[in-house]
């Protein structure tokens, strides 16, 4: 809807431009028209010219050939009325017979303003009388009362300005009215299209001049809604299926892990048997991690995992995960070193504690899984540019740059929607990436400074301080 006022503004500009163009165009046409008729519209000048070109000689009155030609072209006649006697003392040859030869003052006033026997007449002044030029009937229209109030004449410029302004205002109001009506019809349509783009449920009232478009939008919305519903249903069914399988696998797996864990410490077993049992126990743990990750990963993927975010001190949170691992690692096969600075003991972030603990556990577990003979694990929490960085690093077998590229670019089977043989397996790191994303953070992997694998989980810091989070 932001573009609509812009559109309206643009239409206004076009309207005003059109109005002014129309005005100037009309004035131009009027000018052309008047210019064309100017030669014919100067009978008064002709009369003046004839009056001047009529000379009195010994032979009597004589009109110049030029004036005679002009009268002839206009099919006009001329006569001179004597000043004293008010009789015609000179005339052209073509003076019609019905034209009187004697005039009273009243006749002269009448012919000056109007006509003699329907012949429009025009006068030219002379010392010895009044020269009258007559044109054929129907050739000129004369205004019989050519007088205006002087006040009116002086007001004409203002009057025209007001007239133009009133006209413009009227046109503007008509335009505004039609546009507002159109705008009202278009607005729900535009809103509907915007909502469609945002995947929101909409219904546009199917009334008015744009009802057909509204109906089409409603239809499109219904199609989208149905498709979304089906998709959601499929996703829910898939996530539920995964949750169900992972639930049902837990009890039998408990027994596999329980007995193998117990047998591993049985003193009556030979070393070879104990090794085999150890493999069963370790693989059981791998299946356990996979089942846990698969369930959570599918829920995160299909937005079925509710987030319970609270402001947490990330240092305490990471420290607890590290200590839990150390407490369980009785053989000390994976010593964990805490590299966070002692002076840095507070880094607040709005996180789902369980999910973040799971992500960190997965990263530590990842180092353990890929280094079966043991390795050192280094954990460090830092704060950089309002973000909290959690680095998990090891000095184990590590990872090559090409493997990093492959991990970053090969689609995971959980997310891959194409039939391709090149899919990435293993859910641990995928889950960490998903957890980072739901917290608006990021996750990168690479080669660490200790020669092993490096994973960095970055999360935005909370705007709240520690004291806000823990009121006294």
């Amino acid at each position, binding site marked *: 809807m932001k573009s609509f006022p812009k559109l309206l503004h643009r239409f206004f500009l076009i309207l005003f431009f059109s109005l002014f163009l129309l005005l100037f165009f009309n004035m131009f046409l009027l000018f052309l028209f008047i210019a064309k008729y100017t030669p014919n519209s100067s009978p008064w000048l002709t009369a003046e010219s004839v009056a001047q070109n009529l000379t009195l000689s010994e032979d009597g009155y004589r009109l110049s050939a030029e004036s005679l030609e002009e009268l002839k072209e206009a099919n006009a006649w001329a006569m001179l009325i004597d000043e004293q006697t008010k009789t015609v003392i000179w005339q052209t040859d073509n003076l019609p017979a019905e034209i009187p030869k004697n005039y009273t003052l009243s006749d002269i006033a009448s012919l000056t303003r109007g006509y003699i026997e329907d012949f429009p007449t025009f006068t030219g002044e002379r010392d010895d009388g009044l020269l009258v030029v007559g044109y054929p009937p129907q050739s000129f229209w004369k205004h019989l009362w050519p007088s205006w109030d002087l006040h009116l004449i002086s007001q004409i410029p203002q009057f025209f300005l007001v007239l133009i302004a009133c006209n413009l205002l009227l046109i503007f109001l008509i335009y505004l009215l039609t546009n507002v009506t159109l705008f009202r019809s278009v607005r729900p349509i535009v809103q509907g299209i915007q909502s469609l783009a945002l995947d929101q449920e909409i219904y546009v009232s199917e009334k008015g001049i744009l009802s057909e478009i509204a109906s089409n939008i409603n239809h499109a919305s219904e199609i989208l809604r149905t498709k979304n519903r089906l998709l959601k249903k499929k996703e829910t069914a898939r996530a539920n299926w995964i949750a169900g399988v*992972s*639930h*049902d696998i*837990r*009890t039998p*797996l*408990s*027994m*596999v*892990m*329980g*007995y193998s*864990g*117990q047998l591993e410490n049985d003193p009556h077993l030979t070393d070879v048997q104990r090794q085999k049992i150890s493999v069963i126990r370790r693989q*059981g*743990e791998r*299946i*356990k991690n996979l*089942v*846990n990750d698969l*369930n959570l990963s599918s829920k995160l993927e299909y937005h079925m995992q509710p987030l*319970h975010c609270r402001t947490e*001190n990330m240092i*305490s949170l990471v*420290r*607890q995960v*590290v*200590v839990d691992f*150390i*407490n*369980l690692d*009785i053989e000390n096969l994976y010593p964990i070193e*805490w*590299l*966070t600075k*002692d002076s840095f*003991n*507070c880094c607040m972030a709005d996180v789902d504690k*369980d999910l973040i603990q799971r992500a960190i556990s997965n990263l530590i577990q990842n180092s353990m899984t890929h280094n079966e003979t043991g390795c050192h694990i280094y954990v460090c929490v830092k704060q950089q540019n309002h973000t909290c960085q959690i680095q998990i690093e090891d000095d184990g077998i590590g990872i090559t740059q090409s493997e990093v590229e492959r991990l970053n670019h090969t689609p995971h089977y959980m997310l891959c929607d194409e039939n391709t043989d090149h899919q990435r397996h293993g859910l641990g790191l995928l889950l960490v990436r998903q957890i980072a994303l739901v917290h608006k953070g990021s996750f990168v992997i690479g080669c660490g400074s200790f020669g092993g694998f490096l994973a960095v989980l970055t999360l935005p810091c909370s705007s709240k301080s*520690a*004291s806000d*989070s*823990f*009121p*006294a």
Partner: protein
Amino acid sequence: MEFDFLKQKRILLVDDEQELLDMLVSILKEEGYQSIRTAVSIHNALHVISDFRPELAVLDVMLPDGSGFDLMKQLKQNADYPILFLTACGESEDRCLGLGLGADDYIVKPFLPKELTLRISAILRRSYKNETPLIKLHDSVVDFSRAEVVKDGNHFSLTAKEFELLSVLARNAGRIVTIDALCEAAWGENPFGYENSLMAHIRRIREKIEKNPSKPVSLITIKGLGYKLLVEGQSL
């Protein structure tokens, strides 16, 4: 080990899978627990408790004749003893519901035997701490009933904070307890900013329990993470 009396506690295990119950019994017996009874349903469990009087119950959530949460409510009506859920329902909502109803811990299947025994041991120590006898350390003995330390025949009283800190460390003997968990135990749910106070208290505890506080052998610092209390017979 100073907590051997806890191995005498009566434990009730309830799960609909008899094979799982057999395995749990086997794990717990191997760990030294003597008095264990099992039940495969709520009905069965209620029958067992009529003459068994458990001191710890390990329950499954999904039982054939009802929910483990309901069973917990019924068990708690008769007597107050710790309850641990051991279940395949791993949803955080289930966990919150269980803990919210008063469960002492919640373990999601599958689990490692070591994890189960450690958690059971921690719950028992926490729940029956008043029955805890003397804790023998390398250079001294802590008597929680009198809140004092006996070292070389001399008696040193423990302050309230020292007692709390030492109790938490003793309940987790041999395991690291984080700085945050210790601060929370001593100063409640607002533990931020007490790190220096904690260090001061630890120093005073060491003066009471260690022969040479600058070279501690019982109360060990785990740099950046927390502290570990080693009872007699335990080593780094």
